[in-house]
């Protein structure tokens, strides 16, 4: 891990680093470590199932697995994002690793830990898995005992740790569970029909590799009885009952489906004399998925107007060296890319007060989604002639940030058009110009 970071760090430390760059670098470091954790646990999982199905480390299977994983977008994209789901995915990969090493008690412990500490929704996965283990004749009492003991240990662990950080007695995952189930507020975030995960969610996440899964199921039919597909399917079926659906809720089963896709490709490869058209088709599908993934990444990079606006403001602050900016960031800006890792300019002070009313005396700049009464400000070229004012002529728009609004299909190359629209505006208080 250090070897990986060392060259970057040594280069960076020799530059004359302003605090801003240092913070951005820390952001990359933090998220990079998370990505590394994901890659490590996914490698562990790959080696384990390779041992399980081929009783050796099979390079061909490794190549198939990597091809399948790399062609997809969502899991790789979220692997560096600091969501509890990401941490839970890494732990679940560990659990699968224990499963394929046939260390079922360790598997239970890790899953229970992930459930208690990170995502209580994993309980929905744990329950079918437990039943499945009983079906595979794992003795009931020791497994229940393992689950209970690791549950208590994890609970003590998380409560001690979080109560220290928060300075009060707290169990974060429990509070979230209470919020989501007892108060049942999750549907406020939007609802989707029951079949969404099966019909849209999984194909979206697996992309072109999805048609390889039936081949694996066919060629591995002798191991199907003990397959992890059963608890995974039960998990999705149960979780679909919750009306609020997001793809990241079912990330835990994607490695299993990927594993089946990789197995399918590997088995096709051993029968390549007869099955070469299918392999060709699979290659094309994976390449198409990869292209789509790169496109999605490009679109996502346009989807952080908050961060873009703050960077623009910092550029301005670099030019105007005499004044100190006091900038107010509204909720829309904070939700689209701004984090404390970006708030480090020495001559800018940041405020995020919600429901602020007294803008006129406290701040010199505002980043807000609020449009001025006379429509959006002019474009960069004739910015000097901009007359767009907000809140009783005291705030003048100095910049507009365009964000992603949607895609449309066109008839000519490249057939997809990305629509951008004004998302955020930077305003400056008129009288602060002369101060």
């Amino acid at each position, binding site marked *: 891990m250090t070897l990986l970071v060392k060259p970057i760090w040594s280069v960076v430390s020799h530059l004359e680093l302003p605090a801003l760059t240092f913070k951005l670098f820390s952001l990359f470091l933090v998220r990079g470590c998370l990505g590394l954790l994901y890659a490590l646990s996914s490698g562990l999982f790959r080696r384990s199932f390779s041992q399980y199905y081929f009783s050796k480390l099979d390079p061909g299977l490794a190549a198939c697995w990597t091809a399948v994983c790399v062609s997809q977008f969502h899991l790789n994209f979220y692997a560096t994002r600091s969501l509890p789901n990401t941490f839970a995915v890494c732990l679940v990969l560990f659990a699968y690793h224990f499963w394929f090493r046939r260390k079922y008690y360790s598997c239970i412990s890790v899953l229970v830990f992930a459930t208690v500490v990170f995502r209580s929704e994993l309980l929905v996965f744990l329950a079918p898995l437990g039943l499945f283990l009983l079906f595979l004749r794992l003795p009931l009492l020791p497994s229940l005992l393992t689950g209970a003991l690791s549950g208590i240990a994890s609970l003590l662990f998380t409560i001690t740790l979080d109560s220290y950080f928060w300075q009060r007695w*707290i169990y974060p995952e429990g509070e979230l569970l209470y919020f989501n189930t007892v108060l049942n507020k999750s549907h406020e975030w939007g609802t989707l029909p029951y079949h969404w995960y099966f019909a849209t969610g999984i194909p979206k996440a697996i992309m072109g590799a999805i048609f390889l899964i039936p081949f694996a199921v066919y060629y591995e039919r002798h191991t199907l009885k003990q397959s992890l597909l059963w608890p995974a399917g039960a998990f999705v079926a149960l979780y679909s009952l919750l009306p609020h659906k997001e793809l990241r809720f079912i990330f835990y089963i994607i490695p299993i489906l990927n594993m089946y896709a990789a197995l399918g490709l590997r088995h096709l490869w051993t029968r390549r004399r007869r099955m070469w058209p299918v392999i060709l088709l699979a290659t094309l599908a994976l390449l198409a998925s990869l292209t789509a993934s790169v496109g999605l990444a490009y679109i996502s990079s346009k989807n952080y107007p908050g961060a873009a606006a703050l960077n623009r403001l910092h550029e301005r602050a670099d030019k105007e060296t005499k004044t100190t900016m006091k900038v107010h960031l509204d909720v829309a800006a904070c939700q689209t890319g*701004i984090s404390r890792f970006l708030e480090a300019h020495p001559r800018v002070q940041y405020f995020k007060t919600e429901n602020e009313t007294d803008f006129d005396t406290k701040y010199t700049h505002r980043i807000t989604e609020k449009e001025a009464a006379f429509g959006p400000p002019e474009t960069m070229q004739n910015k000097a002639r901009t007359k767009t004012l907000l809140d009783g002529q005291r705030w003048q728009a100095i910049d507009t940030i365009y964000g992603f609004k949607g895609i449309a299909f066109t008839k000519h190359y490249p057939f997809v058009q990305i629509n951008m629209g004004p998302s955020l505006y930077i305003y400056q208080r008129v009288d602060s110009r002369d101060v």
Partner: protein
Amino acid sequence: MMEKTKSDMSTSNGSKHRSPRASIFDVWDAILLVFVFGYLAACPYSKVEESFNLQAMHDMLFYGSDLPSVRFLPPIAPFDGLVFLFCFFTQCSIMMILTPSHLCIHLCPEIVRFFLSPLVMPF
């Protein structure tokens, strides 16, 4: 059934099929990591759901040991302390090993905090 699979395993593993090149990080992981980092480079910023943990990580990094005294986030969505610790220890170990010799002056307090915080931390 379970017994049977166990004995299966012992026979298959007993014949030493295990490749000697089994390492915890190999070229396939590296390829995956390149793609993961590619997405990170394309979209380094964060959206609303992940920002709770990210802010927590930030505070952990930059305030370190005196964290409980400086926390002022409203407890809307409590984050996990373990996220903190994961981040904290990886960063600390990196920082410890790679002590940079020439750092510009205003970074020093932060570096000092990095070195001091493990001593003060109760864990």
